């Protein structure tokens, strides 16, 4: 059975070209970029090149890129730095639909005397900017709002948000882990102070991330020790991974158009066809601007894990917004925040495509999924009611 991988918002495959680029930096060119000798020097050059490549994708200056271990580290660094540079500001703003990398940290900070406001979203997953205007004040140290949501793909109006934040002098951070490489970004003309990205979401390996830190923004390092990354992130760079991230960013830049035309086309077709064939289904975040690769679709009266298991029997890998897969018992916090009715939230499935996704794979899902939903609805007492009515 050939696997059909449609869970790219969870993680992506390492592009062969990325792997080739990093390969020599394990057993041959294994020098430490901080060393004074030529052997380390050649690695340093390659790290510099990677930094430029990451910067290019973001429209940033290479000096504004700090390599980290992952998106989570970048998020933690940004938020912890902001509250340290503003010791008198005790307020943090984020959203209810944030990734745990931000949400858990913010909630933990309430135990240390910080006031945290979690902004609400509407049924389509959109923020209410008036709510933000009302809560941001002179006490706000940082506003951390994701660029695009990992579950629904909903994209937030980041620049408008940034304007509002700047008026109060707070720092603005965005977790752009899902957005980088999927939509065009340009830090040169942006209001973003700090931005987190993660390698394994854009065909680089796991365990490498970066933090964009705008020039002039005050900063306190999270990791201290040696002088790596201009003392902004101590610890010897994971050079091969850094080099891989650089290559992955370069390739992502080259594929941006493809992502927003061909990949988006496949996503739209999948969405259209499933909606047409399967009754009582809906798109989570359907009314909002979304990432080109993400489809979160809900099927009433069936439960997500059961759908995933049956899809998996057909070799199809997707993800679920249902609680049952994670061991927690409520639907995902994102769907709950959006007020998706329970009838749908438990039966939500996320398909996330990549540039390696093919039309044949999409065809396979369109063929295999409808009978799976039909079958589970026949088992479900509520689903049977629905089928009777039809």
């Amino acid at each position, binding site marked *: 059975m050939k696997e059909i991988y449609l869970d790219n918002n969870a993680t992506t495959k390492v592009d062969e070209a990325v792997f080739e680029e990093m390969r020599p930096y394990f057993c041959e060119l294994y020098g430490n970029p901080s060393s004074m000798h030529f052997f380390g020097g050649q690695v340093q050059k390659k790290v510099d090149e990677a930094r430029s490549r990451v910067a290019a994708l973001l429209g940033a200056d290479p000096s504004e890129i700090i390599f980290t271990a992952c998106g989570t580290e970048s998020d933690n660094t940004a938020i912890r730095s902001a509250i340290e540079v503003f010791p008198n500001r005790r307020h943090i703003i984020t959203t209810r639909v944030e990734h745990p990398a931000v949400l858990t940290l913010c909630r933990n900070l309430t135990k240390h005397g910080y006031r945290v406001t979690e902004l609400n979203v509407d049924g389509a997953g959109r923020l209410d900017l008036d709510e933000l205007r009302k809560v941001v004040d002179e006490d706000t140290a940082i506003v951390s709002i994701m660029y695009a949501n990992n579950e629904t793909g909903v994209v937030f109006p980041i620049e408008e948000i940034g304007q509002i934040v700047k008026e109060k002098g707070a720092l603005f951070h965005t977790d752009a882990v899902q957005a980088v490489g999927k939509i065009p970004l340009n830090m040169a003309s942006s209001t973003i102070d700090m931005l987190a990205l993660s390698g394994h979401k854009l065909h680089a390996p796991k365990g490498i991330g970066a933090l964009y830190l705008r020039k002039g923004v005050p900063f306190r390092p999270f990791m201290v020790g040696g002088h790596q990354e201009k003392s902004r992130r101590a610890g010897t760079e994971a050079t091969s991974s850094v080099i891989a991230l650089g290559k992955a960013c370069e390739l992502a830049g080259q594929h941006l158009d493809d992502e927003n035309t061909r990949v988006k086309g496949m996503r739209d077709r999948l969405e259209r066809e499933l909606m047409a064939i399967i009754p009582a289904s809906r798109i989570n975040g359907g009314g909002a601007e979304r990432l080109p690769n993400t489809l979160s679709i809900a099927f009433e*009266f069936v*439960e997500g894990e059961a759908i995933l298991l049956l899809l998996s029997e057909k070799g199809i890998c997707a993800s679920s917004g249902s609680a049952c*897969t994670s061991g927690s*018992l409520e639907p995902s916090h994102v769907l709950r925040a959006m007020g998706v009715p329970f009838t749908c939230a438990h039966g939500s499935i996320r398909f996330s495509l990549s540039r390696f996704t093919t039309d044949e794979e999409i065809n396979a899902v369109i063929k295999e999924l409808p009978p799976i939903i039909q079958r589970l609805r026949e088992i479900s*007492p509520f*689903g049977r009611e629905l089928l009777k009515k039809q």
Partner: protein
Amino acid sequence: MWDYTDKVKEHFLNPRNVGDIADADAVGEVGSLACGDALKLFIKLDDNKERIVDAKFQTFGCGSAIASSSALTEMIKGKTLDEALGVTNQEIADFLGGLPEEKMHCSVMGQEALEVAIAKYRGGPLPVHHDHGHDQEQEGEIVCKCFGLTDGFLKKVIAQNRLHTAEQVTHFTKAGGACGGCIPKIKELIAEVLGEQKQDAPKRPEKLTNLRKMQLIQEVLENEIRPQLWSDGGDLELIDIAGATVQIAFRKACAGCASSGYTAKFVEQKLRDLVSDDIVVEEVQQ
């Protein structure tokens, strides 16, 4: 992905007895859309109204909920109503070769549906599990508001499955799995059940030499207690025994676990039940 046994997968992929029985003698319904799982169970009795000749189900839920329902219908066919009532959720799980602990509530749901069906058939008071059973009489105090579970129900599940942490109670019943507001109360219930279990404690040796006592303590720790902690990803180490004082140190998930105090109490209770009344357990950091 969950680590399901082949038997669970088999019953999920090819569930037995899906559907309804038009002239069923008893129908039991538990769960709801909001909870994420629900089960409707149909039972048909023989002409003498003694034995179950047919059972069918409809389930909304995850893989293990469907498999548990299928297993339940297979298990109760041929049984009298009383025999069927004796089927525990653990037996449903065993029939399937085991369920991940996080999914044990699926097996509890099967047992609940059966109780409701039989109670309805017999016309007695309906057992209260979930408050969304509309027509059910409220009995006992609701402990978990999110899932509508009463103290009586929770205590039964705690006792039957010998649960000793709030997390386990969540895995078995869902209580505590949403807002978590009921967790302190769940912990109280666990302590209460442990206390009750003490009263009808199993027989244990009358007089013990010191040497025998130490041996027994070690045996109980190895055979009774540690396996239970392992299943939670935890562990403990025996540090010392001085008279009736047993010093233990928690390891792995138990170390630094917020409810390790409860676990220590559980260990003490077990040792008192099975070895000697005067045992005091001390948790040491080592």
